[in-house]
């Protein structure tokens, strides 16, 4: 696990950024993948996130939050730029989630799981940006509510409400309880 430096004077070195990349690249990729709907954009944004992290590594300030909070704040800022350029709420055509063939699951089970992942990705796209971000920070990035609050720049209380409400909406969409 990557350890967050505990003092403000302790800047990040390249070894720490490498460790951060090894531990988080998959989570950052899936965060972008489910946000933008496409693998291509997710790859570009993943690359941009770590390029920015490398460029700004001397500006990391441990007193403002953990490494995870810092990394996903960068990711969120890049997403804002992405949506600003692409037009608010615009998404490219949704990619089907590709699955690695698993010997442990029968083909029909794999097909069902793939379909469920497609439904999840589609339902997420119908959520407001902030709800979607909060949910992905929790369930893909693995951040705690207090850390999500820092990334979203809201109070801890607001973050917990956004999360609970967002999950309620997501579930309603997936169960087709609200019009799409």
């Amino acid at each position, binding site marked *: 696990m990557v350890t967050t430096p505990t003092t403000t004077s302790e800047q990040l070195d390249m070894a720490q950024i490498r460790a951060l990349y090894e531990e988080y690249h998959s989570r950052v990729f899936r965060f972008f993948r489910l946000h933008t709907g496409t693998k291509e954009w997710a790859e570009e944004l993943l690359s941009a996130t770590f390029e920015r992290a490398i460029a700004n590594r001397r500006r990391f300030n441990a007193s403002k939050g953990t490494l995870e909070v810092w990394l996903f704040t960068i990711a969120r800022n890049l997403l804002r730029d992405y949506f600003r350029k692409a037009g608010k709420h615009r998404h490219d055509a949704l990619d089907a989630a590709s699955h690695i063939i698993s010997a442990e699951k029968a083909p029909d089970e794999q097909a069902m799981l793939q379909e469920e992942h497609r439904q999840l990705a589609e339902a997420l796209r119908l959520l407001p940006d902030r709800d979607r971000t909060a949910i992905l920070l929790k369930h893909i990035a693995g951040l705690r509510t207090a850390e999500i609050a820092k990334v979203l720049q809201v109070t*801890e209380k607001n973050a917990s409400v956004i999360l609970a409400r967002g999950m309620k909406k997501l579930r309603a969409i997936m169960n087709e309880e609200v019009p799409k």
Partner: protein
Amino acid sequence: MSRYTEHEIRNLFATFPNEFINHDQLKAKLFSRQEEPQAGRHAKVLFRVALIAAIFMVFAVTTGGTLVAALQSLLFGNSTAEQLASFEEPSTAISFRIVNRSDRVTAAPESSAFQSFETIVELQAAAPFPVKLPTHLPDNTAPDLLSIQKLPGGEYGHDVRIHYKALSDGNEYSIGLFQYYAGSEASLDLQTTYPIQKNNIGEIEGLVVSDPEGTVHIYWIKDEVLFELFSGYLEVDTLLTIAESV
């Protein structure tokens, strides 16, 4: 048609595949530059600085403006104010102050620095006033996030926050119980545009606010402490029962 519980949705997140296959390629792109010889890197940096300076000077001359204006324009384009404003998050539409008899504000909520605790016992031991807990909570409820305000001097402030995590029919939701030490004869100055309803919590008058998005907040003062209980999932009656048990 299948119906998803929140637990099943969480499982779908956990099993969502990692489709990123260019891992080694990206790693090489990101980190190979750092392994170039030091002298080569310095030469590249100097070249880039010179190039940026040249572009900046040409830009300043061609726009006929000042160097500062040119720099600002280069950095932010023509919509600086708009871009900065878009980073502001809407704040909560409910705020309050605790006021004592001489109308002096004794507590300012929403402080930014907090220290987290692993257990309720640790939180109670550290808090500068007796922290109270509800004896009644819905089934499958457990403490989640526990924190106390940390003042710049290092001591703990009068703002204690407990978040519970609860599970109902596969839905995960949270219940917040915040406590602010208010002092003797304190009163609550609640400011909100949403309707405020008065409800008794035992023998004490409490204020209930439901925001348009469905979160219910209950405020009351007992034994010199202001309590705020809230949830985006539970009904008012359930929250009032919890409040009465604190």
